[in-house]
């Protein structure tokens, strides 16, 4: 089943992409993806039948508590899962209609970094500590474009300028540990977008940064995405960030999409009890001392998934049906899907008094 199409757009520029994208083939389509980790404790089903779709110029936010399979999904799309213990047990990942999982390894490698690229949470550990940053960015041009050292370096400096690193020419020879956290993440971004990719996956790109820097880096990502008309998959567990940048959102739990819709419908009419729990847990800016109202309980063990709704052990509304029958992800309104037996009831319950 499909993740939701965006229901609302923010800028006229975006409306154009929207029109072209809804008719055009999606950039990326993940169908029924299943990823397992075979460990001593048993087979952990990190991703269980995940579906998402991404169009050019679109931002899809993937949201969920830690351990819900967001990073594993991203790694599966990139083709950088640790295998073993990881293993793709089923599904398709279509890039411009072609299944990446069936593609010859060499062809898929060429797409990495060139058409689909990724930035990671911890830029310090994700950049090579003993190579100058300019060299690391330039490597993209040398490997994929066959450029010579000097030309590649020049390109690297251009990219550094583009992501707002001051004195780029001078700093290209510096090493990652000589930069601040925000600057390092900009370097990661410069490297990821160096070859003008179609799809950019950002796995919690600002989580490791100071709050003030977080906003700057998010703004940069957003601006670059519009400039390059990239499809952006933004993984985060911070609902606050999502509202500003995302077009649509997929909420993950225990390796599944629990709810997906345009970003506004999530805020106005979240249907799934898990999504509602997450929304309630956003710390409020106006009440600094307000307690973070996290969802009580823990996600299920991935090695031993409950038979019914994976959220049922923590759900305040769980019934016997929830504990035995697994709710499928289904459309509950136009462009709005949810995997809960009682999704419609929750929406109407909220909308009635309004």
């Amino acid at each position, binding site marked *: 089943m499909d993740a939701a199409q965006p229901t609302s757009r923010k800028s006229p520029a975006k409306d154009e992409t929207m029109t072209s994208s809804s008719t055009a083939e999606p950039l990326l389509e993940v169908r029924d993806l299943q990823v397992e980790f075979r460990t001593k404790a048993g087979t952990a089903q990190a991703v269980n039948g995940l579906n998402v779709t991404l169009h050019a110029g679109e931002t899809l936010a993937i949201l969920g508590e830690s351990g819900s399979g967001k990073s594993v999904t991203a790694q599966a799309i*990139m083709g*950088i899962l*640790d295998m073993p213990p990881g293993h793709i047990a089923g599904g398709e990942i279509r890039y411009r209609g072609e299944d990446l999982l069936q593609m010859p390894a060499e062809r898929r*490698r*060429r*797409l*990495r*970094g*060139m058409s689909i*690229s*990724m930035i*990671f949470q*911890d830029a310090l*550990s*994700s*950049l*090579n*500590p*003993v*190579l100058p940053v300019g060299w690391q960015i330039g*490597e*993209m041009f040398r*490997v*994929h474009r066959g450029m010579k050292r000097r030309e590649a370096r020049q390109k690297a400096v251009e990219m550094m300028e583009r992501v707002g690193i001051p004195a780029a020419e001078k700093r290209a020879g510096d*090493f990652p*540990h*000589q930069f601040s956290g925000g600057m390092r993440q900009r370097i*990661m971004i410069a*490297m990821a977008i160096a070859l003008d990719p179609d799809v950019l996956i950002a796995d919690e790109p600002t989580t490791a940064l100071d709050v003030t820097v977080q906003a700057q880096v998010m703004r940069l990502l957003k601006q670059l995405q519009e400039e390059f008309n990239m499809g952006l998959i933004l993984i985060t567990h911070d609902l606050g960030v999502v509202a500003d940048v995302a077009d649509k959102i997929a909420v993950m739990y225990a390796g599944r999409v629990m709810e997906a819709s345009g970003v506004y419908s999530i805020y106005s009419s979240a249907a799934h009890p898990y999504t509602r729990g997450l929304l309630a847990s956003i710390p409020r800016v106006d009440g600094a001392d307000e307690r973070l109202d996290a969802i009580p309980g823990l996600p299920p063990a991935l090695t031993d998934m409950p038979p019914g709704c994976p959220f049922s052990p923590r759900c305040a509304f769980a019934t016997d049906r929830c504990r035995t029958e697994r709710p499928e992800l289904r459309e509950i309104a136009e462009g709005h899907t949810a995997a809960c037996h009682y999704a419609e009831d929750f929406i109407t319950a909220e909308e009635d008094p309004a």
Partner: protein
Amino acid sequence: MTRYIIRRLLQFVPVVIIATLIVYALNFLMPGDPIRALAGDRPMSEAAMETIREEYNLNDPFLVQYGKYVWGIITAGDFGSTFSGRPLSDIIAQRLPTTLMLAAVTFSIQAVIGIIAGILAGLYKDRFIDRLVQVTTVIMVALPTLVIGFLLQLIFGLNLDWFPIAGTRDGLVSYILPGIALAAVSTGMAARMVRGELVDALQSDYVRTATAKGLSRQRVVLRHGLRNSLIPVVTFLGADLATLLGGTMVIETVFNIPGLGAMIVDSIKGQEGTVVVGIVTLFVLFFVTINLIVDLLYALLDPRIRYE
């Protein structure tokens, strides 16, 4: 970088002074009276003994003696002389190439075998080759050098007759068994170190990034994985080259190699303090210099050290 070098050079001087001073003090810890030892069994007049004391600066205070000794080494390469009156510098000039040859063979074995075995084990983690390297290196590290030396002589010298077991008459070939014996422990340690570092590096975030950049597996492993994993082993092997000279004392004796290590052992037996102190001082200078070079090399390879 320049500041780092200057700092290391400034540390170098006191280290050299303290280390050579301690070695020099050995003179006074050697059992027996050096002058009586020099005389052998012959009786000696008080006047003759006084002349000798004067010649060897034995009447000066300890630090003055030491100062004159070091000055002699620095200005004239004068390490003193043996009982028989032969300048120690002659002996060093004659025997140093032999010991350096042994050190070179040993070091090559450590570096080449240790690193290659470590890389193979790390690349093929948990596979047969990895298991093989793990087991072999445990044995190599556990067995004392002396025992390995005897075993090699027995198997490859006496039984198979592939290599000579004593002397240096056959040139390079003569150094192979002693080189292996001397290299065994460090080769094992180097291999285990490279394996561990490589396994860690291949699971690191920056190697994952390298893969995500669309680099070939070969480039990911060589440019991003291996380079970083070899930095610690460079330090280890360098430091080991410095301590290796100590090992030559045992191995040169076992394999009857006429180098400086064997000379130390003989001189200890013959109570020739000047010779022992002279050669050990040379070894110490070598040790400290190698360590300095290794530190500078480390800084060159790892920018994180350089800019601390």
